[in-house]
């Protein structure tokens, strides 16, 4: 499986596959091959729960092709619990900023043609 396929399989289970540098401990999403901090290639796989809080987001009303039927929707950046790591994804059913204050608890629930899917917890 490619690194993207591994990320997708974990997202489908509500998990995030990460790479922890065996030299300096820096944590990355598993699509990174060399440590962004120390340059080392040694990584230990760590599977995290895909839970956290919304760090920032937007509600898109002028979508790219393929997203018309989902509009409006949110593209959100999720701050994962207990680690210094964020991951972004698609959130359906968000129409106004009142629906999603920054800090809202959320979790990864799947992966499909809309990319990584995030839902409110």
């Amino acid at each position, binding site marked *: 499986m490619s690194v993207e396929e591994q990320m997708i399989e974990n997202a489908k289970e509500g998990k995030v596959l990460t790479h922890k540098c065996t030299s300096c401990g820096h944590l990355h999403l598993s699509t990174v091959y060399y440590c962004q901090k120390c340059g080392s290639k040694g990584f230990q796989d760590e599977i995290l729960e895909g839970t956290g809080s919304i760090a920032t987001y937007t509600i898109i009303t002028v979508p790219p092709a393929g997203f018309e039927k989902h509009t409006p929707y949110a593209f959100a950046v999720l701050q994962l619990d207990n680690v210094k790591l964020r991951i972004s994804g698609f959130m359906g059913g968000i129409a106004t900023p009142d629906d999603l204050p*920054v800090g809202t608890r959320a979790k990864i629930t799947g992966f499909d043609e*809309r990319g990584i899917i995030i839902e409110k917890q």
Partner: protein
Amino acid sequence: MCFVEKVCVLGAGSTKYGKLADSIADITTQASVAAIESAGIDPKEIGASYISNVFGIADKQVHIGPVLMSRLGIPDKPSLTIESACGSGSVSFREAYANIAAGFYDCLIATGVEKVTHTGTEWTTTYFAYCSDFFYEGQAGASFPGLFASMARAYLTEFDATEEDFAAVAVKNHDNGVLNPKAHMQKKITVDDVMNSAVVASPLKLYDCCPFSDGASSVILCSEKFAKAHGGDYIEVTGSGRGGSPAALQGREQMTTIPSTKIASEAAYKMAGITAKDVDFAEVHDCFTIAEVVDTEDLGFFDKGQGIQAIREGRTKLNSDISINPSGGLKSKGHPIGATGIGQVVEVYDQLTGKAGERTVKDAKVGLTHNFGATGASCAVHVFQSV
């Protein structure tokens, strides 16, 4: 670093920016001929061309370089096309700069071009989303307005700023663009106009966003020896820097700053032997209103979080503390993405050689260009001085 030659800009030209009927090859040639005539050189003096373009495929023409060279009567001269998303122009300029500085050529042409408006809003939005870290962003429905809107919401959360403050950036740049006959949006607007325009990606509204534009811009770069021997108006390139940032917003320490801008500008200031305080005016990458606020902080003109106060106080208006985007910027002049970085150099050339008409920055000696790709994943900054 050891350079053989000082590098100058000897001529500059642009098409109008906007919805253009002529083909991508036509507008590339029109801007290039305007630059050649501005420099007063013979095309045969050009050693090679650097072409910046992203979506040539949308107008059925990639590999534009040889087409341009053939039309300029120099089909034997080499060319290179460079893609770095919306930052393609400045990266291409940098490559041309480096080739002259290293002594490979005496005289080069750098032309940027984009022709996309005929594809319509949906497809232009879709193509541009391919410039993101697609696995994490474009695939999840992120558009470019959406990514900058995410930065805007982070800024509104972190600092004392309002959507009306962002709107003031658009008003200021439209005020400047009205004075630029080449601008796409030569129209004054108010804060209310911005606030009442349709939401594209909250919190950004239509008038927070630059337009999709067609257009081409071109400059002639040469060694100082060539410029002096040739005569005519020229300016000197005194600093050049490039930088990178994590490709996706999620990977940035802070989502209210663009690391590549800091890296590129620090390198350019160091090479020029100046600080941000010495810059008289700057053409910065204001693809969205939030971007200009972040840019002016990352370039060191204002402290972090203070860019918004500078806008409120009008400190970045034409002929105030520091004139930001005297051309109207991407917001009003327009954003033909492959041309933008070169178009900024055209504005600096016009400003520092007394050709900017009503929008002239008074007594300006030092100008800066700042142009990035995507959400600032790639960036180049250049510093110019009048001679």
